[in-house]
């Protein structure tokens, strides 16, 4: 399989200057740049998801008390959501509609979750007085695992997407 069209090669051989068309160069860097950034940020999101899973497990096994645990978990919630919003916006600018469509459900879920959080003066989702309720604890654990699975799949999807974009330009 040839990487470059023969026309370009001929052009270069004639002029001995490597000329690549301008608009193709922009599409190449911006979408691939988006995917690369998304790849790095998804690694951070995976880290957050694993932190959540460990934190809820610590709560369940009585290793830590709910007040301290909520004070560590609550500041991490908004950064996670904002990172996700950030690369949704990036994909919007890069006109990657399929990727954006796949991230829409998670965005809607984040918005719903934050809207229905308990009354709190600071940022966050977790209330130390209700978090030890077994139903809520089980829900948060499940949420942690599902998000980990989603972020892992997205990681590999962005990896594939980045290579695809790099290759198909």
């Amino acid at each position: 399989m040839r990487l470059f069209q023969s026309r370009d090669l001929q052009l270069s051989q004639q002029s001995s200057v490597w000329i690549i068309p301008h608009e193709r160069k922009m599409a190449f860097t911006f979408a691939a740049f988006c995917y690369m950034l998304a790849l790095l940020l998804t690694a951070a999101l995976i880290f957050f998801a694993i932190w959540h899973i460990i934190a809820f497990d610590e709560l369940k096994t009585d290793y830590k008390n709910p007040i301290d645990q909520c004070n560590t978990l609550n500041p991490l919630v908004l950064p996670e959501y904002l990172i996700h919003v950030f690369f949704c916006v990036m994909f919007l600018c890069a006109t990657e509609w399929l990727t954006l469509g796949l991230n829409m459900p998670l965005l809607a879920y984040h918005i719903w979750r934050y809207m229905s959080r308990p009354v709190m003066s600071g940022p966050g989702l977790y209330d130390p007085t209700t978090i030890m309720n077994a139903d809520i604890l089980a829900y948060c654990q499940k949420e942690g695992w599902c998000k980990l699975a989603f972020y892992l799949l997205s990681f590999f999807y962005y990896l594939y997407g980045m290579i695809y974009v790099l290759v198909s330009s």
Partner: protein
Amino acid sequence: FSLYVILHSSTTTGSASPVPNSYESVEGGGYSGTSLQASLRHLHPYSQPFPSLSELSSALGGLGGVSELEAETLRPVNLLQERNILPPKHAPPPEPNLSNDLRKVNCSPDTFRCTLTNIPQTQALLNKARLPLGLLLHPFRDLTQLPVITSNTIVRCRSCRTYINPFVSFLDQRRWKCNLCYRVNDVPDEFMYNPVTRSYGEPHKRPEVQNSTVEFIASSDYMLRPPQPAVYLFVLDVSHNAVESGYLNVFCQSLLDNLEKLPGDTRTRIGFVTFDSTVHFYNLQEGLSQPQMLLVSDIDDVFIPTHDNLLVNLKESKELVKDLLNALPGMFTHTRETQSALGPALQAAYKLMCPTGGRVSVFQTQLPTLGAGLLQSREDPNLRSSTKNVQHLGPATDFYKKLALDCSGQQIGVDLFLLSSQYSDLASLACVSKYSAGSVFYYPSFHHVHNTAQSQKFQKDLQRYLTRKIGFEAVMRIRCTKGLSIHTFHGNFFVRSTDLLSLANVNPDSGFAVQMSIEESLADTSLACFQAALLYTSSKGKRRIRVHTLCLPVVSQLSEVFAGADIQAITCLLANMAIDRSISSSLSDARDALVNAVVDCLTAYRANGSNIQPSGLITPAALRLFPLYVLALLKQKALRTGTSTRLDERVFSMCELKSQPLLQIMRMAHPDLYRIDNMTEQAALHLNDSVIPQPPLLQLTAEKLTREGAFLMDCGSVMFLWVGKCCNETFIRDVLGYPNYASLPSNMTEIPELQTMYSERTRAFISWLLESRTFHPAFHVIKDDTSAKTSFFQHLVEDRTESAFSYYEFLLHIQQQMSK
């Protein structure tokens, strides 16, 4: 033997038979039947009690091997046909089906009660029954008899840390098997010696193994710090509103009277903080000639003006404290301050109490309007009788919740007394007590002159509040047999981990509820045990552990699960669950869930039981009061819609339902109604040379009221005496002290002590009702034609109102839902 004959004849004409026309004889008093279960217990198991019951046993022969007691609780009752299902006396709680020795040592049902006295073996069986599984506890209840163990070693299981209890099994003299995790443990040497009988080698005779409620003296292993002294801080609102209402006089007088009786020892400390738009502290140092007031006006950053002498030793500074209490009401009579800085005052109280922990009692008379934690008026008076969702049942800000969590961490319990006449956002304020294990008291429209009933109630409540037993820096752990697990807790405390509850203060008047689920099958065990252990510091600085253990049989048949249902416990647990649901989702969801609970349970019974009649609404006898109690809950202030209810009163009703012990909740939900103008001595109790008449319980419907009578309704925290228009004049004269009906005042709040026999008998009956109670109810005498009678009639739950079903309509509604 002749006594049994009387019992038989009265009970056969009583509630046992489903024929309605025998009940007309019940009306008019003199009925002396006891409940059927109680009479069966007294009878020899092999005697033939009633011809009808043996026929019934053979009819239900398909159930195979069922005991007589079970046959009675499973007797099908057609609710649409039986008009009078209320037993004439309160039925005792159902007894679990255990052997006699286990039954004798089992925990008292007043302390520990389970919704199902026969535990289903698997979660699938529990789901089939459609009944909630949970426990109702009253662990720190005032007890007359409490074995206290002073032993060097407290014997506990090595793996699950359960305390040794009457339901463990001794494999031989030296080893015992835990009944919760089945681990085999060794018996320590000290345990082999029995100090009570002075014998050696009989560990199963020791008091820990003979009593299911014991108290251990805890060693220093159970202390995180040296036991704290009793520390009491009173935070008082002294704004213009507060002084107008006059509560300060009542409080100061009450505290002066009870200063000696505050629980504690020589280390007891006391302090006072007052606030309006600024916070005031009082220097009570021993040696000062009079108390010194220190004012902090910077409410955005409240600081403590001096380090000591704000919380002083009660014994040493007693004279100064008395001077302060005498002077306090007068100090603020001319105040013009209308703002209330409650948040800063609470922050100051927290800072003061941080080093030691203790109890803070907050008295508030209006919405906090200044400083941190200020609240807005959220109630819309036009929406009070809305049939749609009720808004603002949850807190507006988490300031009070965060403060409560901080206080809980420092072992400070906060009790709230709200004495306001306008909206004060109790939904937000109550959080400060809910999570710090405090109590909430509410006196709507309190005024010392215009509302003497509330004023008297406040005084009596304060007396009990100041003198009742108290435990500090407490934690409670509830353990269950392997296979059962607890998933939700209800009550005023902070859940510190999956089964550990942190209670900054523990008092004898709070109840708790927990919901359980069955994680693994209980097939290989025949007994399920539950243990509640409460570790606390007594007011005298001794560290104690109070342990209660309950044992219940495990069953594998659905019919046995229904036979062992404890309807009062089920109602209370459902009330707790409904309140949680109404705060987290909505009130209408909670109401629907309650109705669905009844529908599902009765459908499950019909689908799985041997149904004799396909028409009508059939329930087992154990559950025959279920629809009635659920209807009563739906008409409670906490959960009702369509009737004008103030938001604060609704929220307070919710707080009560979640924190009161079971008996009080049942009286609130389904009050007791008695006719007292014609009480006779038949079947009266004879106690201590006084004769206490026992009138029968009446159903809560206007049908049972009559103009010629006087009726007493016991609602737990309030009692009504309704006097009919044509009530006989002897009663009005001899008991109430007025010549005729027309001269009765409209705001009578107590029965005078007259020397007539009628009066003595009535007062004996009312005192007997009040005996088992710790807080005295407010008492109102209501005439038939005053506006106050609506408060009496709203408790008649079986009647139709413009927004709610009557009992019969509710049954039809359930039947209709069941056939969908």
